[in-house]
């Protein structure tokens, strides 16, 4: 392995305040509750800032502001709403380096990913939906589709700003106003986004950001003034939310967990497949709901594939997220690290074989080396439960039918991967995989024009594309 000199991205570009209030009605306001929590850099455990945990009364204020803004925002011509959203997209591009650094600091993901994946997709998403705002009558939802009202949106910590974009851009384009709650461990880019709304002169109350943990999210979801609930996160919380909104007229979309299979057939281009499998599970430390966490490899090439995979993993660099050469950053929180450790230990105790490359781990912060389990049975917890970390479970198969059977043997259905050079086999497999996104001879690709979302217990509704509008229209 080559030695690389450290190449850290400067953090001087970001300006983090010691504490933040809530962003309600276009203003920074102090929370009514006393509760404040620190948000830390998971790579160093350094305290970055203090954020408010919004109480029920705070959420109520935010929903009221959004309700008030809804009347005028929804009445604006679509072409005017479009221009506000285009402005936001442009400001994100202008400030993308700053936002990328901020994201890596608060989340722990490598700057290479926040800079080259997250931020370009965030800007693209706003650009894409800005263009829909004055074309909704052509979207296939009737001549004059109406917005729903106030959208309550709760997003996770794995792609903080990107998930914000996926939620806010279509909501605003359709004429809704929003109250968004970022994850408690990664609030800083959402708070920076509040400033972007001010720079764009977005009318007060159209976007409101309330920080907090589960209680704040629950208060938002059950608030009677919310017409639409959008959630990205765990299936467990998704179930609770579905129960909470039962019997109401609230429209609900859920983007939940996954346990995707990456199927490698014996005729696949091995080197490309190895790259894809590595990208599939080690991208963003495996903190990806659509991660290819199960490798299903055809028995005849399993040994060759595993050797190549291990060679490749030995070249991954784990460490400082702000270093431009880093491949694997920090685990987002102590709690998440504990969960990854627990499931990995279960993998060993249930009889799977554990392997990690030699990989120095920094002294401070939360880290987990890339890990591969072989000899995994379908009944093992590491083959069934979402680990949400850099842990790959390897299973083998003999026939295409067996591959499909195993791939679909999960309550989840978010994504899947197929690797083969044979077009007919690829299309055959893609048609049988019960998953919302099928990547063939590639993995973890995202685009604002491409609908994303799951089958079965991975949730319902789609984000992205024309399909993504439906979640925010009264249709």
């Amino acid at each position, binding site marked *: 392995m080559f030695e690389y000199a450290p190449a850290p991205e400067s953090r001087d570009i970001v300006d983090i305040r010691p504490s933040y209030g809530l962003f309600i009605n276009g203003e920074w306001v102090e929370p009514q509750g006393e509760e404040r929590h620190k948000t830390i850099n998971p790579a160093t455990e350094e305290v970055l800032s203090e954020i408010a945990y919004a109480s029920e009364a705070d959420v109520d204020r935010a929903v009221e502001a959004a309700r008030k803004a809804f009347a005028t925002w929804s009445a604006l011509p679509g072409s005017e709403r479009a221009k506000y959203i285009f402005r936001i997209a442009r400001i994100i591009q202008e400030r993308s380096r700053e936002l990328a650094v901020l994201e890596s600091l608060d989340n722990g993901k490598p700057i290479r990913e926040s800079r080259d994946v997250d931020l370009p997709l965030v800007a693209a998403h706003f650009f894409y939906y800005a263009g829909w705002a004055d074309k909704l009558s052509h979207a296939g939802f009737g001549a004059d589709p109406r917005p729903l009202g106030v959208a309550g949106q709760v997003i996770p910590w794995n792609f903080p700003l990107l998930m914000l974009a996926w939620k806010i851009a279509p909501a605003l384009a359709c004429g809704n106003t929003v109250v968004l709650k970022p994850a408690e461990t990664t609030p800083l880019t959402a708070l920076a986004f509040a400033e972007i709304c001010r720079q764009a002169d977005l009318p007060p109350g159209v976007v409101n950001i309330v920080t907090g943990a589960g209680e704040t999210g629950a208060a938002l979801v059950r608030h009677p003034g919310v017409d639409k609930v959008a959630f990205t996160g765990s299936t467990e919380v998704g*179930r609770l939310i*579905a129960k909470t909104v039962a019997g109401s007229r609230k429209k609900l979309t859920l983007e939940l967990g996954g346990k995707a299979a990456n199927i490698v057939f014996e005729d696949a281009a091995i080197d490309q497949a190895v790259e894809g499998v590595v990208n599939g599970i080690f991208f963003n430390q495996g903190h990806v709901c659509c991660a290819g966490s199960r490798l299903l490899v055809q028995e005849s090439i399993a040994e060759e594939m595993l050797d190549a995979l291990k060679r490749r993993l030995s070249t991954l660099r784990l460490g400082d997220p702000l270093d431009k050469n880093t491949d694997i950053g920090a685990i987002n929180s102590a709690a998440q690290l504990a969960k990854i450790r627990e499931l990995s230990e279960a993998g060993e105790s249930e009889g799977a074989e554990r392997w990690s490359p030699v990989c120095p781990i920094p002294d401070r912060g939360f880290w987990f080396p890339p890990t591969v389990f072989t000899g995994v049975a379908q009944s093992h917890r590491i083959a069934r439960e979402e680990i949400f970390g850099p842990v790959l479970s390897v299973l083998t198969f003999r026939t295409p039918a067996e591959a499909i059977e195993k791939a679909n043997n999960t309550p989840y259905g978010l994504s899947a991967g197929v690797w083969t050079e044979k077009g007919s086999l690829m299309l055959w497999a893609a048609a049988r995989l019960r998953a919302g996104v099928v990547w063939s001879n590639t993995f973890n690709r995202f*685009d604002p024009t491409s609908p994303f979302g799951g089958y079965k217990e991975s949730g319902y509704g789609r984000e992205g594309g024309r399909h993504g509008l439906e979640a925010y229209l009264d249709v």
Partner: protein
Amino acid sequence: MSERLAVRKTYKLFIGGAFPRSESGRSYVVTSSKGDFLANVSKASRKDARDAVTAARKAFPGWSGATAYNRGQILYRVAEMLEGRRAQFAAEVADADGVGAKKAGELVDAAVDRLVWYAGWSDKIGAVLGASNPVAGPYFNLSSPEPTGVVAVVAPPSAPLLGLVSVIAPVVVTGNTCVVIASERAPLPSITLAEVLATSDLPGGVVNILTGSAAEIAPWLAGHMDVNAVDLTGAAPDLAVTCEELAAENLKRVLRPAAKPVDWLADPGVERMAAFLETKTVWHPIGT
């Protein structure tokens, strides 16, 4: 000469293409809108509901894997068979709803036309709800609708034929299979419809029809872990809430009862089909 005594029909359940009695041995009395005795109808049990789900699951791969053209042909065949029994259905609808013979005939005609309308959708819905997506990179990217799976349907208590056909057709035309709880008050047209389905080349298990208490059966289906979606169109408000809560356990897709009473004669639009379709998006690199 004495008047001939009519041979009455035994009304049973429709599960997996067969007509079993309820395994529980239970039945209940169905009367006309005037209160006259019409039949003792099977009262489905939890075991019957589970058997129906098993049959629907078993039928799903074949039905969803059939060509859209084939599904359209079969639905059109159902319309043909229904048309052939127009008089029988009109009599049953008149008994159930207390409408005159002319109105009853019109409702049967509307049900036949509804089936023909949905039959034509089988090979067009993909073009309307699918998309070729222009992603910013060298990738082929295609989104297509696919059936959700096994759908439990609470049929509307009124409109025992037209309403029933209007909830079954959009579910199955796209490749789903279903378990339908017929109108509790007026179930006879549903079982006669089952006889039509059984003679229309529709594979057994694609449509399963249960008669009995919706308040009893619907929660069993809404809480069943091998059901993918519930259509609560015919559920009373309290029952709909109970079912939606139960459905959350495995994140079933839920079609709530409409906020306003449904006009079954109006143009249905694509919403009922869209409610039980998933969007699958396939990516593949482009290159030499």
